[in-house]
């Protein structure tokens, strides 16, 4: 197993904030994906995210969430077609989103409630809005819910390609790069 002991650049990097960072992060992820497996040295400023096919747009029905994992099998998430365009949404209707389902508070598994398109935590009652980029409606987590950045190719295949915040229970989002 590849270790994470190559981590450097632990100072100011992660306090970059806001839209500018999101753009930079997205660009880095794309570049790394194109470069293939992360053998490059020195290491990049962001972790090297894999690109994983999650499903095809034709597989999804509104409000019927699909369980997925990303960026590896130990990180559960959910792929949802919301039915109306949403923040971070992809696909022909701009309504397909994906989130980590480990609550960023204590790691309990979130469940989807279709009536108000929220993810809910049975551990300590936190709630996240799938239509608002995972904004915490109410709860104990000190992060809004990490959202998986998606891309849809010409065939309608949906790929997860990066994550916009730290997943519960790991100090680096990619454990096995």
């Amino acid at each position, binding site marked *: 197993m590849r270790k994470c002991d190559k981590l450097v650049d632990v100072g100011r990097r992660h306090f970059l904030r806001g839209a500018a960072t999101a753009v930079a992060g997205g660009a880095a992820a794309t570049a790394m994906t194109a470069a293939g497996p992360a053998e490059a040295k020195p290491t990049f400023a962001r972790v090297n995210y894999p690109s994983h096919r999650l499903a095809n747009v034709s597989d999804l029905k509104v409000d019927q969430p699909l369980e997925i994992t990303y960026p590896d099998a130990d990180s559960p998430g959910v792929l949802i077609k919301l039915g109306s365009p949403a923040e971070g949404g992809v696909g022909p209707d701009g309504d397909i989103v994906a989130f980590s389902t480990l609550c960023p508070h204590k790691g309990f598994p979130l469940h989807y409630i279709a009536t108000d398109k929220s993810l809910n935590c049975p551990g300590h009652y936190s709630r996240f809005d799938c239509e608002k980029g*995972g904004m915490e409606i109410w709860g104990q987590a000190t992060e809004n819910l990490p959202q998986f950045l998606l891309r849809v190719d010409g065939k309608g295949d949906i790929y997860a390609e990066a994550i916009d915040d730290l997943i519960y229970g790991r*100090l680096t989002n990619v454990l096995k790069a």
Partner: protein
Amino acid sequence: MAFKRNIDRLPIPPKDAKVQNVTCHFCIVGCGYKAYSWEVNRQGGPSAGSNAFGANLALQQDTETTNWFAPSMYNIVKQNGRDVHLVIKPDHECVVNSGLGSIRGARLGELSFSETTGSQAQRLTDPLVWRYGALYPTSWQDALDLVADVTRRVIEEQGEDGLIVSAFDHGGAGGGYENTWATGKLYFESMKIKNIRIHNRPAYNSEVHATRDMGVGELNNCYEDAELADTIFAVGTNALETQTNYFLNHWIPNLRGTSLRKKNAQLPGESHSAGRIVIVDPRRTVTVNACEIEAGKENVLHLAINSGTDLTLFNALVTYVSDQGWIDKEFIAASTSGLDAMLAANKTSLDDAAKITGLSADDIKKAASFIAEPKDGKRRRTMFAYEKGLIWGNDNYRTNGALVNLALATGNIGRPGGGCVRMGGHQEGYVRPDYPGGRPAPYVDQLLIGGKGGVHHIWDCDHYKTTLNALEFKTVYKKRTDMVKDAMSSVAYGDRNAQVEAIMGAIRKGGLFSVDVDIVPSKIGQAAHVILPAATAGEMNLTSMNGERRMRLTERYMDPPGQAMPDCLIVAGLAQALERSWRAAGKNDVADKFKGYDWKTEEDAFMDGYHANANGGKFVTYERLRAMGTNGFQEPAVDFRDGKIIGTKRLFANGTFNSKDGKATFMATQWRGLQAEGKQQEKDKFAFLINNGRANHVWQSAYLDQQNDFVMDRWPLPYIDMNPDDMNELSLQEGDLVEVYNDNGSTQAMVYPTPTARPKQTFMLFAFPTGPQGNVVSKGVNELILPNYKQTWANIRKIASAPEVTRHLTFKSQEYLPPT
């Protein structure tokens, strides 16, 4: 878009990271945390042998792991002048929170001051004085000498009543035993200052006078009692949001039934089942929802009472319980006095109570049964908990007494599974010489509005955000302090004598010289002439106790910003400056009163104060507290044995109370309607109840949260919960800005549609920096100058449709939904 930090990895604490004890700075619960720090150019590794957690971090960690921290728990700070990584993560070994971190405490890391990451750049780093039309940095000696000279001159002309003080009296950040002692020694021992108020109310008074007058100290049980009770009776407390981990870690296990083993082990010889709860609150809160989820609706009785009528409910309950014979006769005979007189005075029928409270007689009866109906012939154990809904509610003194009556009559104080306790706001940390003023204490904000006083010392208080009648206060305060600013600008700063003469000239005309000690620029600080930068918990060693009187030491894990100092050492500097000033004026007898402040560290202040003066203080030292870790001990200390401070689990466990004869006294508490002057007229005149309180994101943390991206993204403005029908009537959409206005003033909020809100009953965030609810609260107080923030009525009108800052927000229900 929702705020994201875009963090994809964090540094790993090495095996030899320094680990220190931390108690969360913010609320009364005082959750235990550990601060990990290590040199900035080092890091641990993922293998178990190379990190501080001893865990394989190349693997996904489990639910509730001890081996992870969130980005909000991390920062880079200075420690003895050197950059270090800092992680402040919840302590699983602490019995208060068992590893839980609230949405506030779990951000202690990123709420720390950092020159490297830029967090909390708002922190004050230097003493500032008014010169050339603005506030500019100066030295400690220059600032303190100016404060001392003006203070002396005002006292010479007006006596000590000319010095008005606003000062914290609590624990946690901006307080603690070190700092309350120092301010108390200065104002009550070296001087005899009567015109002093506390951070959140306009006079120097207890918020719970009645329970104390009855002989029952208000923090009398332990958190474990919430696990042992048959019933919890919760009044005006939204514990899930404002005592979060006390609720999650001690109330929920009882409601879930997972504390049954503990009940059977500790309380043999009686039947036990999962706990039930009665919640008295005009509003349906997330607390009510969580209780229903865990205990089942049949075990939760939410009494959505007419705002301000709690007293009548309690009188009816005590009458009914007594009529049923459900009182604890043995306890009453041995430990109380005045039952019969109380029952005669407070006699209230179920029907009369139903009429006033808006509840059904059946629900009141059901509450009585939950509280006191014997279980298999044994006394039912009920814990009574109350907070601001009662404390800042109608007829505070009598309502508090009425609730304690019920707890005493049912024998529920000093016993396992019992207690009659306030839930608390800040932690506590009070040790001071006696207050030299009388009772009722002076209504300080009215003195300031009335032009009284010449100099105002403010210690970590912000009237602009947390006072009643706030708009009038601000208007007058600005005018009076502007007079002094203009006078100061009229002469050269470097000519101290001319400065002081100019200041005194303005004061004689009604001006006010304002000195503000704080850790961040406050709203009232905008009016100040001198600002003094303080350190907060963790930047100094600091002791406090929580809501079960659990005392801990937060160790100093980082440097304060710039020249900032602990409040107690600022006090010492000010006392020494006053001594110099009085001596230079030839008043050696007065100067001598300011001796005894030769503290070099906060520990010196602790030894001079708590150790020498607190009940049991002689057993307590920093060294011993450090060894007691995040569990500390429960005050009062009674011994030091086998390397441990021995504390007290429950007060009054032997049935002896705080009175001359050792008996608790019942109190006559007749209903008298809306007690504070003008409240009934306000209710009659204005359409909406403006109930008010706190949000989970922001609670005892607003002063730092106002510069926290995560929080300000979610709550850029205070929200006001409104019933959708009321919104329709006013043509309002979610996120729209409204003005809340009445004859006291006006303020703003953003609309949060809330189907569970009763028509014409709104709920607005209290004391929020971008829209103080206090602007519309009248000056009406109770007979002991306790404010009545909760019973406020006003009208509402639209200011603007949702602006950009609210447009991206979610306005969905805050209530958790279980799987379908």
